[in-house]
């Protein structure tokens, strides 16, 4: 049996699980048990991947603009980057509309991932992924020379379920609830990772501020020391000048006294010469 998965990826994200269930049931009813199992294992797209899929279906003209501009950039015509940017902006605006129409919140984080997905698809194309059926977010373009780069994870082959880890029979959880729980856990993990990253960045910034403050304080201290040294040298110079002045005064005084003594000596000698024998 051939299953048209387009309906699955075109559906609102909130209905993905229900549509998947229905398609799997249809396949099973038609006798295609392996097909049904494969459909049941199809992963639910991330919100940003879902938005990409909706754009692929609902904004073909904008998509064509993006592809044309991206081809031009890749061929060396960097002037097409403006067209590429305009197409990305238009696609982003359309994604917000589509998300709102599907009661799907378009958060800033989701829109940032959408931008990355669109730029990656514009740069590399869909690769192994069937167009309009993106499930996971793509790495940003610019890493294509990296040996480990893969465009997107292909659909994983069916695998045997792992052996149970406990003897107590697990409580049966409806599939959609389990799926929601997985999504919630993923969202929580993502939020935790984002918070951790924000905390790390804040800590890095704090450390950097402290380091720069230390450098500034150190420079100020060095400047103060240098200034004190200058003041000290100036004081020493002043003292030395005063000492020199005092010495000069002493010399002048001594010279004056010597001259006075010389004058007295001459007077005495003259008096002695004129004195009667």
């Amino acid at each position, binding site marked *: 049996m051939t299953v048209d998965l387009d309906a699955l990826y075109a559906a609102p994200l909130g209905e993905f699980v229900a549509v998947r269930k229905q398609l799997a049931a249809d396949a099973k009813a038609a006798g295609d048990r392996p097909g049904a199992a494969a459909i049941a294992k199809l992963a639910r797209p991330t919100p940003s991947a879902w938005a990409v899929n909706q754009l692929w279906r609902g904004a073909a003209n904008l998509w064509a603009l993006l592809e044309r501009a991206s081809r031009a950039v890749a061929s060396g015509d*960097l002037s097409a980057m*403006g067209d590429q940017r305009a197409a*990305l902006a238009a696609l982003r605006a359309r994604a917000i509309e589509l998300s709102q129409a599907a009661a799907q919140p378009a958060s800033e984080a989701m829109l940032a991932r959408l931008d990355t997905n669109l730029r990656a698809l514009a740069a590399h194309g869909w690769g192994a992924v069937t167009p309009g059926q993106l499930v996971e977010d793509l790495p940003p*373009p*610019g890493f294509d020379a990296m040996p480990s780069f893969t465009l997107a994870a292909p659909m994983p082959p069916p695998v045997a379920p792992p052996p149970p880890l406990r003897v107590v029979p697990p409580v049966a959880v409806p599939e959609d609830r389990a799926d929601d729980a997985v999504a919630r856990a993923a969202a929580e993990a993502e939020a935790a990772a984002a918070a951790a990253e924000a905390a790390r960045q804040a800590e890095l910034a704090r450390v950097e501020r402290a380091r720069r403050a230390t*450098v500034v304080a150190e420079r100020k201290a060095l400047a103060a020391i240098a200034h004190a040294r200058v003041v000290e040298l100036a004081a020493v110079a002043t003292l030395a000048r005063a000492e020199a002045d005092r010495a000069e005064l002493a010399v002048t005084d001594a010279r004056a006294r010597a001259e006075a003594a010389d004058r007295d000596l001459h007077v005495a000698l003259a008096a002695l010469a004129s004195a009667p024998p």
Partner: protein
Amino acid sequence: MLEGFVRRGDVFFPAGSVDSDDAYRAIWNQEADDDAVYSATGVVSQGREDFATLTATRQRLWTEFPRRHLGTVLEIGCGYGRVPMILSKDRGVTCDRYVGVDIAAAMLTRFARYRREFGVFADADVQLVCASAEEVPLAADSVDVAISSGVFLHMGKQFVHRTFAHLAKVLRPGGSIVFDTSFPNARSFGMLPVQLYGLFAPPKPNRVKHWSRRELDALMRDSGLAAKVGAFTIEPTVFKVLPARFRKRELPLVDRLNRRLDPPPRLLEDLVGTMYSIHSRVS
């Protein structure tokens, strides 16, 4: 070999004396010693020297640079080699000869070390030159591609004019230029606080200079570079309604507002774009 230059270690220096007291040169040497990555990307490296940290900032012109084999590449203000790392290792760009020019020897020494470590332009003849761009004795019409990222904004306008005139001489006819986020937009709303601050702040040799689209167009034509490259694009980029930070302090809600307008509608690009890039076709 570069005439009039001598090689010391991995770096070419002018054969005469270098003015090590030059304030502009001293700033970049100091930044290389403090945190070269922060200087180039605004990301605090905390001493990390892995590839991801060194290339933490990746502008679209580099991440989407056409994968090519280029002839001779001249980079103005190459720093520790962030752009060549992205081009060579991420984009798979190769070249015959790469001449990286920077005024700070400390940056070039790092570049040489990172080049060995990461194999940047491994098969090319790489020459790292500690000088101003117009001092590098390259033959007329010998450069195929001239690149620069976030460098001209710090240079005095007369130096930029001189550098462009030199580039017009050494670039081959039909050669390519890619000057990414190089010219702060003098008409940008988001740049107004920075411009106002610049009017009253104490003078600093590397304080950014602002350019209008008209000035850049005149720069390209008067220098002769427009005639060499043919068609070129002055592209507004880095869209911000207001700076998200002012003197390293986060401004509340501004980041969110900026993201809403990135990218902006075409009509607003020249008002919201805080930087201009200039580029021509990479052939």
